[in-house]
């Protein structure tokens, strides 16, 4: 017998009407729309392939490489990075050590991008050691390429949590306070480090720590002092060492990190990542005098300021405050290091899901990039457009669909492959920048009148 399921049809009808009514009252609620019916017979060839093959299109290298004289990705006009380029050229010629400090957020915390940049620059210009590293993991995912870290007994205060009310977080943004018995073991893949500096706070009632290199004692330091003063103690392992043990003999001791160096020439690249950080860490949370003293002790030729991803969640902050905070951070660095080059590095693209298989760029990201570019120009800083270097708007959708995947499922953090890609573009742009600098120097030299 032929039957028509009237009641089930009525259910579907009532449901459709209910959804349509809800949609009419609250248009942001999903409801049946004519578009959906049209979509059933929409066979746009761009979306629905006729044949199971698509011509593979390689990106035009000319549009992204920026190999012409002025790069669209790295804005270093007016010689704003010349101090750094001069040092880098010196390293290339085998006459100097060049130090870079790179402040960033979560990818930097895991040494993503920075770890690859360090490796690439050191391969090209020589290595003068790993550089600065924290003495314990403030976050489980804190890591540096080529370094293994284990520690116990430390009270950890990152600048992002502002637990250390005095704002003294050292060069790396994290303060470690250890009682008697606190211990850190830092193992470097590179066994040729000969100089280790422990960055600590001299303070009234400060305790004592000892340092061992490959198991052999190389120093002991009393951190007591009449007032709080950030300083560092340098220890030497003449034959080179791979492992450093830091032990609190008598507490309390407040330490900010350890730097490991080896005879140059070459590059030292400090990756200073703070999880969840924004530009306000540099502009507000760091005690200005203390941070300036730390920067002067480190004496880098280039300071990289690489924030913006975490700010993207806060539209009002971006429009009202962000520019002021960025200018203040740059002012602080410039006040501490008047000669050093400063590079503002834009955030990566950041995506969010807008529909089935639809991932779009967060609208605030291009806004932040625009502000950073303008502020960098106004304040005599270099600017690297990471967002455009990756491919600009919609990159995260493409990177998420790539095989292997180049970005994590949060559409924020690059995978190691994605990080390497960004690092390669950045290192290449640095190389192009150095070449431009050399060219300018040669032109200047040839333009000088001959001395009789």
């Amino acid at each position, binding site marked *: 017998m032929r039957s028509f399921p009237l*009641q089930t049809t009525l259910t579907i009808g009532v449901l459709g009407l209910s959804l349509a009514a809800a949609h009419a009252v609250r248009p942001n609620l999903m409801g049946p729309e004519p578009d959906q019916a049209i979509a059933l017979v929409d066979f746009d060839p761009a979306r629905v392939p006729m044949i199971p093959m698509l011509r593979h299109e390689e990106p035009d290298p000319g549009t992204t490489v920026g190999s012409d004289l002025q790069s669209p990705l790295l804005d270093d006009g007016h010689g704003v990075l010349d101090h750094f380029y001069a040092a880098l050229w010196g390293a290339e010629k085998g006459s100097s050590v060049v130090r870079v400090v790179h402040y960033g957020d979560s990818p930097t915390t895991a040494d993503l991008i920075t770890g690859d940049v360090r490796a690439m620059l050191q391969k090209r210009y020589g290595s003068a050691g790993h550089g600065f590293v924290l003495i314990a993991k403030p976050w489980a995912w804190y890591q540096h390429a080529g370094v293994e870290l284990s520690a116990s007994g430390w009270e950890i205060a990152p600048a992002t949590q502002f637990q250390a009310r005095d704002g003294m977080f050292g060069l790396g943004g994290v303060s470690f306070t250890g009682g008697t018995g606190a211990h850190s073991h830092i193992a470097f893949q590179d066994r040729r480090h000969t100089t280790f500096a422990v960055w600590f706070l001299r303070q009234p009632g400060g305790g004592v720590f000892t340092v061992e290199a490959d198991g052999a004692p190389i120093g002991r330091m009393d951190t007591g002092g009449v007032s709080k003063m950030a300083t560092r103690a340098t220890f030497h392992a003449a034959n080179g060492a791979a492992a450093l043990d830091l032990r609190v003999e008598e507490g309390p001791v407040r330490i900010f990190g350890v730097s490991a160096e080896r005879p140059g020439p070459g590059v030292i690249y400090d990756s200073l990542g703070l999880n969840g950080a924004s530009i306000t860490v540099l502009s507000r949370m760091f005690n200005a005098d203390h941070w300036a003293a730390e920067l002067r002790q480190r004496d880098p030729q280039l300071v990289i300021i690489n924030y913006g991803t975490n700010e993207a969640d806060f539209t009002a902050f971006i429009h009202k405050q962000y520019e002021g905070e960025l200018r203040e951070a740059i002012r602080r660095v410039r006040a501490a290091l008047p000669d050093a080059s400063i590079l503002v590095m834009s955030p990566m693209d950041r995506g969010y899901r807008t529909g089935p298989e639809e991932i779009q760029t967060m609208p605030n990201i291009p806004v932040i990039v625009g502000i950073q570019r303008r502020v960098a120009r106004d304040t005599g800083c270099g600017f690297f457009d990471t967002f455009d270097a990756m491919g600009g708007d919609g990159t995260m959708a493409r990177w998420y669909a790539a095989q292997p995947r180049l970005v994590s*499922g949060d559409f924020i953090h690059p995978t190691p492959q994605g990080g390497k890609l960004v690092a390669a573009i950045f290192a290449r742009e640095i190389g192009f920048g150095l070449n431009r600098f050399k060219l300018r120097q040669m032109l200047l030299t040839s333009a000088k009148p001959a001395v009789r």
Partner: protein
Amino acid sequence: MQVGAGVYFVFVAAVFLLYWLSWAATGSRIVRLAVVLAANYLFCAHFGLFYVLLIPVCSTADFLVGLGLAHFQRPWLRRLLVGFSVALNVALLAASRHMGVLLKGWDWIFPLGVSFYTFQSLTYTIDLYRRDGEPTTSLLTYLTSASFFPTLQAGPITRLTDLVKQFTAAPALRREDGGRAFFLIGLGLLKKSLIADYLGQSLVNRVFDTPNLYSGVEALAAVYAYSLQLYFDFSGYTDIARGVGMLLGIKLPINFDHPYQSTNLTEFWRRWHITFSNWLREYLYFSLPGKRTKAMPYLNLVITMVLGGLWHGVTWTFAIWGLLHGVALAATHGFRSWRGRPKPVSGWKRAALIFATYQFVCLTWLFFRSGSLATAWAMLQRIGSLTAGFDNLSAPLLGVMLLAAAALFVSKQWYSRIAEGFARSPSYVHAMALFLVALALELLGGKGNAPFVYSRF
């Protein structure tokens, strides 16, 4: 047209109306089947117009093989025919996955995986070869069954002889059947959007993409969350597919039966992706040689599971997933033949066995989910680091995980009671319940659903 999306349900509603109206108006099987066949090919066309040519051609070839198997009795000829069908479907399966490596300068694309189609097609010709089913002489019935749209993306893998029988019979849809269908669709949507997608986006995808950014505890939580995500995603898909099939008067087989309540791995595979494990057993394991020897059945089990793993993708991680399951299944069978079938256990012993089986399954999921061996190794290292960071384990995330874990242990009796109670309730209750589900998805679900995990296989 993603299963579960708004457009999909507009499509289903349109097919439902046309199907039943054509049947009520004409009483013609041909018209009724033509509606479903048109719907099937419209569905396929949304993924690529080439499917509208590819699938009918391959289906017609299998249909002709079926006619041949029904007609010819000579063993060599029957072997030749079934061999042709196996070669055709395996070639289609392999080409859809790997032809791209041969095409320089071109991307080979199959947005709709054809593996579930090929598995279903093979059930027909192999069943007929084994004289284990009735052939159809109606090309229309065969084409309609072979490409039945609710099952195309990710099953459940249904024996085509069974589908053919259902499509041949006069359809009927009682109000209770409609209620059951709505219950399944609503439940499937809730499983997918509120649990699977939430867990995937909030933890699993991030951790597996960049394990080094997370603590050991978070990495471990991500593995457990993935076990829940996969179950709720895939069983959600199956519920929707079964519900849509039911609206057209077609009963599709169940695919999941409380798998995480299994006390051993053999039981797990009787409860997890049931139609796939049945397919592997019936059409692959039983086809392998050496059934009567002592060692070969164990080796065949391992081979079957490794091939089952490689079907998901030719990667080391899927191979290891299959190998771990194969070896563990062989060990379970070996232990049973040595000590005899274990007696049913209850209480703490049963809980311990369920716990141990679940831990092993989760270990294998770690390989299944990792895109590469490096990722799997990084995940194991993170878990082994025993670092305790909880920053990414928010209260809502833990709440959803606990809710999902609790839902796994809803007893069959309770489930049946709820489902039947809903099915028997008045039509307006069905409509209002689905309306509330839609609102819940809209208000609580994330923006935009991710594709179903198994739709890519």
